[in-house]
């Protein structure tokens, strides 16, 4: 009984991931794309749980489904979204495109399915303790560099969307996950005037 659950879960999650990702590419409205992207990331978190990486799944939900989707939605909100049809799919090049996709995809799939499980890692037990001990011992320096990178990205985002004119002075970054949020609001406000 328990042996059947895992492939079924994998099938459902894989269908949801591929379908929602195709929806991201094919959807006409950008908001639909953004929400389908969040759905893809949520299902990917389920895939990480299936692989036994619960900590990564938690990070996935926190960072991708939480922060990045909200950032993208803010980007959708602050920019004009013209309903533009994607004229590139399903034109008369479809047979050639399908041929090229098959020629490129078949070797990739053959190579992908050629990988075999060789690990004897117990699927239970979680990955928090090995992950944390690895980050804070072997990868302590890259970890610190990553924090510097985040700081640089935050400062860069603030500088990029900063307006030099009057009134843009001293609000300051109050949210590290969405640095341009506090700055970007006046942009659309002025653009509407």
């Amino acid at each position, binding site marked *: 009984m*328990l*042996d059947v659950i*895992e*492939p079924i879960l994998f099938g459902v999650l894989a269908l949801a991931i*591929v379908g929602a*990702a*195709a929806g*991201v*590419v094919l959807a006409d409205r*950008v908001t639909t794309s*953004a929400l389908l992207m969040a759905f*893809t*990331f949520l299902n990917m978190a389920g*895939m*990480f749980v299936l*692989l036994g*990486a619960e*900590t*990564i799944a938690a*990070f*996935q939900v926190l*960072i*991708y489904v939480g922060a*990045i989707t909200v*950032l*993208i939605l803010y*980007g*959708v909100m*602050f*920019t004009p*979204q*013209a309903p533009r049809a*994607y004229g590139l*799919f399903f034109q008369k090049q479809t047979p050639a495109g399908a041929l090229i996709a098959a020629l*490129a*995809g078949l070797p*990739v799939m053959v190579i992908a399915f050629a*990988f075999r*499980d*060789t*690990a*004897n*890692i117990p699927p239970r037990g979680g*990955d928090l303790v*090995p*992950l944390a001990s*690895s*980050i804070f011992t*072997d*990868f302590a320096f890259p970890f610190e560099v*990553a924090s510097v*990178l985040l700081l640089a*990205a*935050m400062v*860069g985002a603030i500088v*990029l*969307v900063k307006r030099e004119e009057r009134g843009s002075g001293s609000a300051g970054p109050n949210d590290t996950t*969405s*640095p*341009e949020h506090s700055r970007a609001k006046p942009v659309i406000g002025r653009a509407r005037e």
Partner: protein
Amino acid sequence: MTTLVPLGAFIALSAALFFIGMAGVLVRRNAVVILMCVELMLNAANLALVAFSRRLGLIDERGSVFVVFVFVIAAAEVAVGLAIVLALYRNRPTVDVDEVREMKG
């Protein structure tokens, strides 16, 4: 407990998601949608890293560490990318990457 889903299935799903994201980057012309598709590609790479880390046995838990770094890069990338898109939109009222061709030779 036996693992019934083979490693190859995860890698194949990762490749499929990566190619879907790449098709989106190539086909869509909206800069925000292109950012979303880049996120899809990063996430596909994350799935491959976690699958190899958990199942291949060559690298113990260290693939997951790289996934954490990919998370950091993705967050920084989407923040700076959206800032660039907003700065672009302030200078010219479009987010269509085909209409921004000042630096095209």
